[in-house]
């Protein structure tokens, strides 16, 4: 199969959907001629014109709000939010307006919009351009939250997001934009709420989100060398969350660890760990491990930044302890 980058996958998903649905419009900063600073959208304005690939002023709350209104009245806007850190600027429009409109109207108004943004540190972009803020939107009912872990996932999940009748926030890993993966030429979509079991194993279940899927897979390789067989699961969407697949796996392996690039405290690892503990309690041989980003603003210095995110080595080391029955983090 041909291989394309995650960036190309996103571009293809948007182009294909825009070809078949004239109500799709894309709004964001420097999305047209510039194709975004990451060059993800290059070529789209040439095909669809500036009426559908719309350069906006630097007004995130404003164009997010405009997208909500456009979605309520018959369009399917895709909002390009250049950095995930700018989520903080659009929270009111996304969480107070988009997320609640369908419910508050008793099901009469829909907000079929997509907020495309990104996450991920270690780009030396410092505290305001490196955050992984998906836990925040996952906490707000009415939003769906998707996190592709490869080019293949990015294309399939984005197409599903665009067709969904709800506001969907999709986080791409900005360090993976140039990573290639096999992506079929034929049309496909990936359903929300269906976790992907990437690797089968019997000794421990590694649940990994977005950027951390590669880390978990690398950790699984390290563990295999030690004779430990790890199952690796990518939930793909954290809202809806396919806890069924995760819990089934943990019932088999009896151990679990959740890995995420968001801050650990009050983050995604907590929810998934809590659900595993609730639903597989009597099957667990060890506490469910959690590994999120450190609870610190992301430092600029390369000497510090790399310390803040989970690595395959640390995942493997913690998993080893769990499998060997050596308690960790137990007072």
């Amino acid at each position, binding site marked *: 199969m041909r291989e394309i980058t995650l960036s190309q996958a996103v571009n293809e998903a948007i182009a294909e959907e825009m070809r078949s649905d004239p109500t799709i419009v894309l709004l964001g900063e420097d999305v047209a001629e510039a194709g975004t600073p990451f060059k993800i959208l290059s070529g789209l304005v040439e095909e669809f014109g500036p009426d559908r690939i719309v350069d906006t002023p630097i007004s995130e709350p404003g*164009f997010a709000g405009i997208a909500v209104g456009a979605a*309520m009245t018959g*369009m399917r806007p895709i909002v390009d939010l250049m950095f995930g850190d700018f989520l903080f600027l659009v929270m009111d429009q996304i969480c107070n307006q988009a997320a609640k409109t369908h419910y508050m109207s008793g099901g009469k108004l829909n907000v079929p919009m997509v907020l495309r943004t990104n996450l991920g540190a270690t780009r030396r972009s410092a505290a305001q351009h490196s955050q992984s803020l998906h836990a925040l939107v996952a906490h707000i009912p009415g939003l769906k939250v998707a996190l592709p872990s490869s080019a293949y996932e990015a294309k399939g999940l984005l197409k599903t997001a665009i067709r969904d009748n709800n506001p969907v926030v999709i986080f791409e890993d900005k360090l993976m934009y140039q990573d290639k993966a096999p992506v079929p030429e034929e049309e496909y979509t990936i359903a929300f709420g269906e976790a992907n079991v990437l690797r089968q194993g019997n000794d421990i279940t590694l649940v990994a989100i977005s950027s951390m899927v590669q880390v978990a897979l690398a950790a699984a390789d390290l563990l295999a060398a030690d004779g430990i067989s790890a199952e690796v699961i990518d939930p793909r969407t954290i809202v809806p969350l396919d806890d069924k697949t995760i819990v089934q796996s943990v019932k088999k392996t009896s151990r679990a660890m959740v890995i995420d690039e968001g801050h650990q405290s009050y983050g995604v690892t907590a929810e998934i760990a809590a659900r595993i503990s609730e639903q597989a309690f009597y099957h667990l041989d060890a506490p469910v491990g959690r590994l999120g980003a450190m609870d610190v603003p992301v430092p600029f210095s390369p000497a510090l930044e790399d310390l803040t995110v989970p690595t395959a080595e640390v995942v493997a080391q913690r998993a080893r302890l769990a499998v060997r029955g050596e308690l960790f983090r137990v007072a």
Partner: protein
Amino acid sequence: MAKKKSSNADGLLRMYEQMVRIRTFEDNANQLYLSAKMPGLTHMYSGQEAVAVGICEALEKTDHITSTHRGHGHCVAKGAKFKEMFCELLGKAEGYCRGKGGSMHIADQENGNLGANAIVGGSAGIATGAALTAKRLGTGAVSVCFFGDGALGQGLLYEVMNMAALWRLPMIYACENNLYGEYTHVSEMAAGEIGGRARAFGIEAFKVDGQDVLAVNRLTQDLVQRARKGEGPFFVELATYRYHGHHVGDINRTYYRSKEEEADWKKNRDPITNFGDWLIAEKIASAADLDALNEGIRANAKAAVDYALNAPYPPSSEVDAHVYAA
């Protein structure tokens, strides 16, 4: 294209009727609240009727509006029915939003009302987005954003006015300046001159007497027509006044506005009284006609209130319905 539906006698009477319907709706809502039959809190539109009616009567059903926490007037003016409105205010299943929205979120998408909003200024983006839809899909629709003088404090408004201006959207920003945001006078909250805040973005700005339904309607008809031709966006400041407190519980108001001021507006600038007098003077209607009309509306409202009071709440199974659309 907008029919000038309000330039004939029928249209004029309809404006009068719609204003009375709003006033009557609010009187009933107020009573419901004071008699503890209505849950939550609510904000009365009484006094501002000429704004909602003058504007909405210049719109088609397919044009969009967004409304505010003080939203009953816009809802009635855009064509909503008493029964579904009272049901909504009481949290009943037959309400416009199945009781899930309530006073501060009442919406009526059939008539183009995208909803009240409990975030001050929060609908400025939504209204502008509706105008974007109109332009992109070529529907010819115009979008009106109602907001109070207090909403001038929200930065979102300036962001979307800028985009509306850049993209020449069919948009009317209708600032209802009733002189107060909660318990504070507009002069303490808004520096400079209000219209200048739109002109800064190259938007044509107007100021009109918001108690004069004819003046409001004439201006709006003109702007709607121009907006449909691509000459928008526009900004209108409407000088008006709310008769009640900020919300129904705001009883002692003398520390922020005088009784004399209230009395003056009610006595000399009431939009309904003045327009009624004009209709009689112009021989468009007799005093008896207007009385009969008022009577009919009161009866309608009473029937709707009675219906709503006895209507069922949504079943508990609905609590987690409508979180996500299918």
